[in-house]
């Protein structure tokens, strides 16, 4: 019996040793790590597999799993020697995970996907290669003006390359547009919705005609996101956070929409809210270019031909976006850079991003080629959404400067959107006062007004 127990303990110790060994991710992968990599292989098809090559593996953490796999797959057709390991991390945990990895000293990925509203926060961590220096030598002036300074930190370093310029418009369901507004033509619709107040009048009409069933928008959070990014008032000026100035327009509009039942009560981003993309009760959705894959196609797979894109009354805006940066502790910076460089900085890569992801990389000169954009899109009922996004929308986008506190304020914005929808008696002034208090509580090292 005693021996038996000892045996068990010994076995445990051995297994424990194995686990510990497995974590030391060196060149000699422990058995378990190997198995992991294989799981990865079978999952990503050619993406990670297909080569013995240099044996270097570039690790990317992303919340945008499917798209990143596609990028890796096409990248490997050109660079079969470089393996790409894509790790899926929940968006809501992503920044936290990076910080924990930094603080706990555990291994960072080679490539980090930096959410645009957190760029300054990523910069503060001091873990990224400066892409404007040797050996990368990226001159950010080749990018679109409204986006070129986003990933540039105060000290002039460039910590990431934007994956997509994220022009944003409003998507609508064609059948419902015809039913309620008599047309599904984007230009005609843009005339009907020429001024922000038109959303109120038309939204009321939709409510009346449908007997209270149908709404113009599905979630206050989605509307708030659109209005926030369309409003180019900078959040930070000279060391002061102008919360009230930044949020007043958005909150006013939100309250008015709530009072007139222009927007339904779903909570943005939840599975329930996403399921409305395929129903017949919600007409319009603020739509950045990436939302086409993420939201519309993912949630309304059978809706091909029934979608259209129109100019918002606020003009075009740039919403969201992700930059890819290389960590300075990476042991395969060259390979990581080859991935970023090919995907985002070469014409071939740009075409791949366009065709497979509906993403448009930020380099201006690609767009000079008239062949680069344009063409009918079947899913959007034959509309030329590329030209629409990259001519009409891009030209109307103003530059939005993102500060270190945008993510904090965005969290408060979402909180207010929920509060406003919950309490019909909350006025815009109430909401703003509440938001200001929150902001003051969370932002301690700067003046907040």
């Amino acid at each position, binding site marked *: 019996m005693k021996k038996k127990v000892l045996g068990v303990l010994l076995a445990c110790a051995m297994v424990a040793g194995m686990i510990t060994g497995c974590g030391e991710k060196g060149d000699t992968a422990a058995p378990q790590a190997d198995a992991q990599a294989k799981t990865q292989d079978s999952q990503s098809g050619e993406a990670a597999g297909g080569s013995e090559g240099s044996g270097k593996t570039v690790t990317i953490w992303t919340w945008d799993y499917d798209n990143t796999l596609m990028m890796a797959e096409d990248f490997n057709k050109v660079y079969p020697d470089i393996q790409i390991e894509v790790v899926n991390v929940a*968006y*809501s945990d992503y920044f*936290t995970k990076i910080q*924990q990895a*930094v603080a706990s000293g555990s291994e960072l990925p080679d490539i980090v996907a930096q959410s645009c509203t957190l760029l300054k*926060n990523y910069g503060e*961590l001091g873990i990224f290669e400066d892409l404007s220096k040797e050996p990368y030598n990226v001159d950010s002036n080749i990018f679109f003006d409204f986006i070129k300074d986003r990933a540039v930190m105060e000290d002039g370093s460039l910590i990431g390359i934007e994956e997509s310029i994220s022009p944003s418009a409003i998507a609508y369901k064609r059948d419902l547009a015809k039913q309620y507004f008599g047309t599904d033509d984007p230009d005609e619709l843009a005339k009907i919705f020429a001024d922000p107040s038109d959303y109120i009048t038309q939204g009321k009409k939709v409510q009346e005609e449908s007997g209270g069933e149908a709404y113009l928008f599905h979630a206050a959070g989605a509307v708030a996101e659109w209005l926030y990014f369309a409003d180019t008032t900078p959040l930070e000026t000279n060391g002061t956070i102008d919360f009230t100035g930044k949020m007043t327009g958005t909150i006013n509009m939100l309250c008015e929409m709530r009072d007139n039942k222009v927007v339904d009560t779903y*909570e943005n981003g939840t599975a329930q809210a996403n399921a409305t993309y395929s129903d017949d009760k919600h007409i319009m959705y603020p739509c950045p270019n990436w939302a086409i894959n993420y939201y519309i196609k993912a949630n309304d797979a059978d809706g091909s031909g029934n979608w259209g894109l129109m100019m918002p009354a606020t003009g075009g805006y740039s919403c969201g976006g992700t930059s890819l940066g290389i960590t300075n502790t990476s042991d395969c910076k060259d390979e990581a850079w080859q991935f970023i460089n090919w995907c985002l900085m070469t014409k071939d890569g740009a075409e791949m991003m366009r065709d497979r992801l509906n993403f448009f990389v930020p380099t201006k000169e690609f767009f000079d080629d008239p062949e680069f954009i344009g063409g009918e899109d079947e899913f959007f009922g034959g509309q030329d959404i590329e030209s629409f996004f990259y001519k009409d929308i891009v030209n109307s986008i103003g530059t939005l400067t993102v500060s270190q506190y945008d993510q904090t304020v965005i969290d408060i914005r979402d909180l207010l959107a929920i509060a406003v929808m*919950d309490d019909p008696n909350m006025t815009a002034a109430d909401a703003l006062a509440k938001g200001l208090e929150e902001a003051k*509580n969370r932002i301690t090292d700067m003046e907040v007004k």
Partner: protein
Amino acid sequence: MNKIKKTGGNRKYTVFWPIVFVAPFVICFFLFNLFPILYSFQLSFYDWSGVGEKTFVGLANYVRIVTEDKMFLKSLGNTLFMMVISFPFAIIFGLVISAFLSNLKHGRRFFQTVNFLPYITTPVAIGLIFTFLFDRNTGMVNRLLELLNVNGLNWLGNPRLAQVVIAIMIAWKYTGYYMALYLAGITSISEDIYEAARVDGAGALTIFRKITMPLLKPITIFIIVTSMIGGLQLFDEPNLMFNVSTTSVIGGPDRSCLTLLWNFYDVAFGSTAKLGYGSAVAVCIFIVIVLISLIGMKLMNRKEDVI
């Protein structure tokens, strides 16, 4: 107490073997429980984001918690409130049902096991299912209410109702567990005592109040102590219910479901991460928990004689 003989003076039994048996626990305790807390305590006097230099700031972090940071007190209030409206319900409900059912002969084990299921269900699953049940537009609860011609409620968007949902979740999770415990306790009470009481002409209610409840006191204490521990550690379920999408708000609607630990987690690792400040929050939580535990044990009037 047990009746071990003093093996007088035999150092084998007063020094050597005790050390052998107690050492693994004590060593692991110092390494993986106490040391991290002490280290956090030290960190709480610094301003540190996890990278770069630590700056010594003295008591500044604590001053901020007490004077400026409304979130700590709010999270404490939220946690206590959710505990107070959920656990007593689960305990009383568990006790009453178990008393009701104690004289069933058949299927007791089966019912005990079935009612234990909520306790073993993964919090991730509970979070998902409860968001599904209580969603304002598509949730089953609101649909049922609509069938009864009652307007659906904004369960997950209203600060108070969100707390109620969490409380319902806790009550659901623990009622069956407590019932199983009480049932086990009642079973172990000798039938003779009841018999004697009945001979003396005591009614069912009197028997329950005068015999069952006092005899179940140890179980009740056990339950209260463990539920306090569980309640103060509340994190998984609220976090998993209100941190699901790209646009989720920290702490749920109006941060009403921000618990002590969630607040700590957010301060230490969230978007404005500060490990030093987070550690100070952790130390404050530690103090609160120790205080509440002491008060709880005092109230139970058995601080020392638990063992």
